[in-house]
């Protein structure tokens, strides 16, 4: 385990570059799609949902105050970009990371308040927390482990909810979800190849049920992650399948959640291959001696 943690620390710079490079890409995509706070044009209908956090924020008029001011909303967007750039190029200055976490959190809850839906995509938010700590500090490894476990908890909890809610015995479950999920796609693109595929899946309940079970298995597999890092390569592959499956069958591609890949980079595999290489070298030297 110590060796593995050493491996993660060794790759701190790579992790940092991958993460903040990706965050800047997300920022640009949001800018292109008019999804940054200053582009929301001072929205008027806050959505509090069934979340006490949003009740508090909306009650205190905080999101309304931020988007109500062109200057303030622009400042949050600008701070998010500059702090990400600062974190990318000046890894040792932790002030940039602190500012990024703060500005991103503000962006996250304010945009969720005015998009009429509370998105649960906390990938960027959680992964960014580990970079608050310095490369050589113990806390960095602890944060990395904690975030990794939270990610596994997320997927395993989704698996358990499906079990508890009896998805295994509900043959039409996925077929019905597909109808609701794709109504806008079918409305706009009735003759697209993907529309044919969706209609086929909706009509073929056994096939869609099998797909749903496969998706459940892909989530359940993450229980392994609580016990060992040896199979992180396999988990990375499972998450890749999960993402591709969600995109293909559910039209869900949540960019923020792609950052979870970072905690799955197969460091365990790297350690194993390093150990193998060391053993091979020792074996070869033994042969030469004898």
């Amino acid at each position, binding site marked *: 385990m110590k060796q593995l943690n050493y491996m993660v620390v060794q790759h701190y710079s790579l992790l940092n570059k991958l993460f903040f490079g990706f965050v800047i890409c997300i920022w640009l995509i949001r800018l292109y799609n008019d999804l940054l706070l200053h582009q*929301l044009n001072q929205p008027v209908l806050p959505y509090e949902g069934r979340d006490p956090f949003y009740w508090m924020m909306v009650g205190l*008029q905080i999101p309304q105050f931020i988007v109500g001011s062109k200057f303030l909303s622009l400042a949050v967007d600008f701070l998010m970009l500059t702090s990400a750039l600062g974190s990318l190029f000046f890894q040792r200055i932790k002030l940039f990371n602190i500012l990024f976490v703060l500005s991103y959190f503000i962006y996250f809850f304010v945009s969720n308040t005015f998009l009429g839906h509370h998105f649960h995509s906390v990938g960027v938010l959680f992964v960014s927390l580990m970079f608050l700590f310095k490369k050589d500090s113990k806390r960095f490894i602890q944060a990395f482990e904690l975030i990794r476990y939270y990610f596994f908890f997320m997927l395993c909890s989704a698996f358990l909810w499906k079990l508890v809610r009896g998805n295994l015995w509900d043959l039409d479950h996925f077929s019905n979800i597909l109808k609701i999920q794709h109504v806008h796609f079918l409305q706009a693109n009735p003759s697209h190849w993907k529309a044919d595929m969706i209609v086929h899946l*909706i009509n073929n309940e056994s096939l869609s049920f099998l797909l749903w079970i496969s998706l459940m298995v892909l989530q359940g597999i993450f229980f392994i992650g609580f016990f060992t890092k040896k199979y992180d390569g396999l988990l990375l592959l499972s998450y890749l399948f999960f993402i591709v499956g969600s995109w293909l069958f559910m039209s869900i591609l949540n960019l923020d959640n792609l950052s979870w890949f970072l905690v799955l980079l197969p460091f365990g595999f790297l350690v194993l291959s390093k150990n193998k290489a060391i053993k091979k070298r020792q074996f070869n030297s033994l042969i030469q001696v004898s």
Partner: protein
Amino acid sequence: MLHILKVQFTPFFLYGMYSKAVGEVDTLVAYEIEVDKTTYYPFDFGREKMELILGPLDYYNNHLRLNGQDPVEHFVLTKRPHWNESELFNQIGEKVFTKSEELQRFPLWYKTILERSLSKKINHLIVYEVKYTYTNYGLKTISKNRLIDL
């Protein structure tokens, strides 16, 4: 702990990921946006931008279905009808739930968002709520209801 209590507190959510039973789906709701006699569907704006085009509109429509009442307020009062008499709940509600002036300002705001997305000035905007039923070969329109006319 929050999972056991079935409570979400940002950034800690319940990750059910579509596990909730859906039941038989009879009616599906979607929207049609008519801009100066040209029809657009929310999906035409692309996957990312659809968040902005669809989410707030759907939330606005949920209010209209309840004659202007906040859907969350409606949900809470359905579960706990006696809270209607609670002074504390009413005080919180005044601060948190949607006010009628916010609802009135929505169509105009929505128009500015569409103008920005389409990069053109809109003279006449009509937004329809379209109800569909699913047949074996796709969607079949049941009804079309005008939500916004500006």
